[in-house]
């Protein structure tokens, strides 16, 4: 908790400690205050006086950039001064001693902020930050540092999904080793979820997907091909052959590959432009798949497409705040396309579960395919909107 009013703590301090300490603490507070106050006050600093009950002026307007505020404590309590964006503190200066000045030079984007004025119960003032030519340029082409947050979030997402993949593929291996056919089927379906959620970055791990996820349709001898390994080979065994026999080594390799994948993700660097581009490409792949000849042993395709959609949405929407700022229409386009695609999938559910792929009418396949195509197109508009190649 930020210190909001240390001076009235005299009694607490006294109760705690010797008087000599008060001298130390007092000197320290003064030193800290002067340390900030000692910073040069530039010409054109915006002056704000915090009185006992209000800020003067209570409403400020400044151009975007890095303005300097000169805050004067005109109250009789030590205070802190904060600039808030919703619940988030954009910048603050703590421990401003009564009668003293301090400066603060935060980076501010256009928008409306609140400023604190002493006690928590005192009304807050407002700070309006207006656009400049420079802020307008940054709006349609954000600086590289603006992508650190979104890319970090994506790394967290991938890290969690890959941990889940390790756990679920281990569970799949255990069920197969135990000869538990029904348990293995359930574990297989569970493992496909994190795997599909990571689908936007599959192209980055081509060697692993080749072992973990090849389709028999693309192999010379189809299901009999020795290169037919991984998820679908296990799926083929569990559903088509109705047995766990011979699957244990395959499940072992799959689990080991999942471990490798997890490690790979720790090292993987995703570029800003990949977030939307990968999402768009994935949605396009799904749309293509829905049109083509499609072999599915488990019939669980719709649940996987729903997970694909989650993965695509997560990836692209991480830059949505930037896109929204630059071009609200483009942002609305993707959000609407995602909502429609989710609704199209959910509309097919029977109770809580998706129907089997085989039971799906051609018209419904078409509908889902169209919905994914729209997601692909809407996500493809993201990078150009914020000046990414």
């Amino acid at each position, binding site marked *: *908790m*930020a*210190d*909001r*009013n*240390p001076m*009235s*703590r005299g009694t*607490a*301090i006294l*109760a*705690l*400690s*010797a008087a*000599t*300490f008060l001298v*130390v*603490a007092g000197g*320290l*507070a003064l030193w*800290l205050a002067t*340390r900030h106050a000692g910073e040069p006050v530039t010409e054109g600093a915006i002056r704000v006086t915090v009185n006992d009950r209000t800020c003067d002026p209570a409403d400020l307007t400044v151009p975007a950039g890095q303005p300097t505020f000169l805050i004067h404590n005109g109250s009789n309590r030590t205070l802190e001064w*904060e600039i*808030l964006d919703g*619940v*988030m*503190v954009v910048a*603050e200066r*703590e*421990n401003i001693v009564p009668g003293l000045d301090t400066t603060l030079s935060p*980076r501010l984007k256009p928008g409306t902020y609140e400023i604190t004025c002493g*006690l*928590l*119960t005192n009304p807050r003032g407002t700070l309006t930050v207006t656009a400049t030519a420079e802020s307008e340029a940054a709006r349609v082409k954000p600086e*590289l*540092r603006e*992508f*650190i*947050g*979104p*890319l*970090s*979030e994506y*790394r*967290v997402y991938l*890290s969690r999904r890959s941990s889940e993949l390790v756990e679920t593929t281990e569970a799949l291996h255990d069920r197969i080793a135990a000869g538990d056919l029904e348990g293995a089927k359930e574990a297989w379906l569970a493992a496909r979820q994190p795997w599909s959620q990571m689908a936007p970055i599959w192209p980055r791990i081509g060697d692993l997907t080749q072992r973990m996820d090849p389709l028999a349709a693309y192999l010379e001898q189809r299901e009999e091909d020795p290169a037919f390994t991984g998820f679908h080979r296990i799926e083929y065994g569990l559903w088509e052959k109705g047995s766990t026999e011979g699957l244990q080594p395959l499940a072992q390799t799959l689990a080991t590959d999942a471990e490798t994948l997890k490690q790979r993700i720790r090292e993987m*660097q*995703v*570029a*800003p432009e990949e977030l939307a581009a990968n999402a768009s490409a994935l949605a396009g792949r799904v749309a293509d798949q829905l049109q083509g000849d499609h072999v599915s042993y488990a019939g669980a395709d719709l649940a996987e497409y729903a997970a694909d959609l989650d993965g695509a949405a997560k990836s692209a929407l*991480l830059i949505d*705040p930037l896109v929204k700022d630059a071009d609200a229409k483009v942002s609305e386009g993707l959000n609407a396309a995602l909502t429609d695609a989710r609704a199209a999938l959910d509309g097919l559910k029977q109770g809580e579960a998706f129907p089997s792929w085989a039971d799906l009418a051609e018209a419904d396949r078409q509908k889902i395919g169209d919905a994914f195509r729209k997601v692909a197109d809407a996500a493809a508009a993201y990078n150009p909107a914020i000046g990414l190649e």
Partner: protein
Amino acid sequence: MRILTLAAICGMLATPAAFADTTLDLVGPISDYKLYVSDKTDDLVGATEEFVAAVKGGDVEKAKELFAPTRQHYEAIEPIAELFSDLDVSIDSRADDYEQAEADPAFPGFHRIEYGLWEQNSTEGLEPVADKLLADVKELQGRIEGLTFPPEVVVGGAAALMDEVAATKISGEEDRYSHTDLWDFRANFDGARKIVELVRPLVTDEAFLTKVDGNFATIDTTLDKYKEGDGYVTYDKLTEDDRVALSAAVNALAEDLSTLRAQLGLG
């Protein structure tokens, strides 16, 4: 035309390509930090559930025992408390922030419960406060999950917290009823140090790192003298010399760590 060209060249020099390359190097540390905070918040929810159960069950001794270790999970993530200032107020504000201090009905959170347990030696009237605390830490958990951490807040958070420890916490104001401040300090230092450790590979100023490491080491040595069981003795046991040593180290850290943002291109 010539002037424009020159200006363009100067502009390019100001942001060399090498900087662009290292900017995104922060993605690793920031994401690892989020995972750290997320773990701590999960621990906080679990510990608060037990703490709140003790308070609501009227078990003063158990609640006192759980108070400091529960708070540690919160204090460890305090470098980024700026991201949820409303919850920080309802979880961890002090009586001074309220017009009628301890008697103010709006005084919430850990410190209101601390006041009841130590000053009044009772859990009477704490039930709604405890329920609200648990609801708040759960709300925090959910919010952390959906929050994109701004890198400048994370990197600046280490200095901001050390500044706060130096300016106010060092007086023993935070846990003024229980005097369990050393537990908080331990968690504050660990939380700030975590940030330093994560960005360490990106820091090129060796002298800076040596100095920061030295001050963290001084803090460790000083705090270690006051260990008792799984935690620490009460804050009034701290000798004047050790308080001064601690204060000097924290002040130096606050000063040094305040340069970290600029060092990492987040000025």
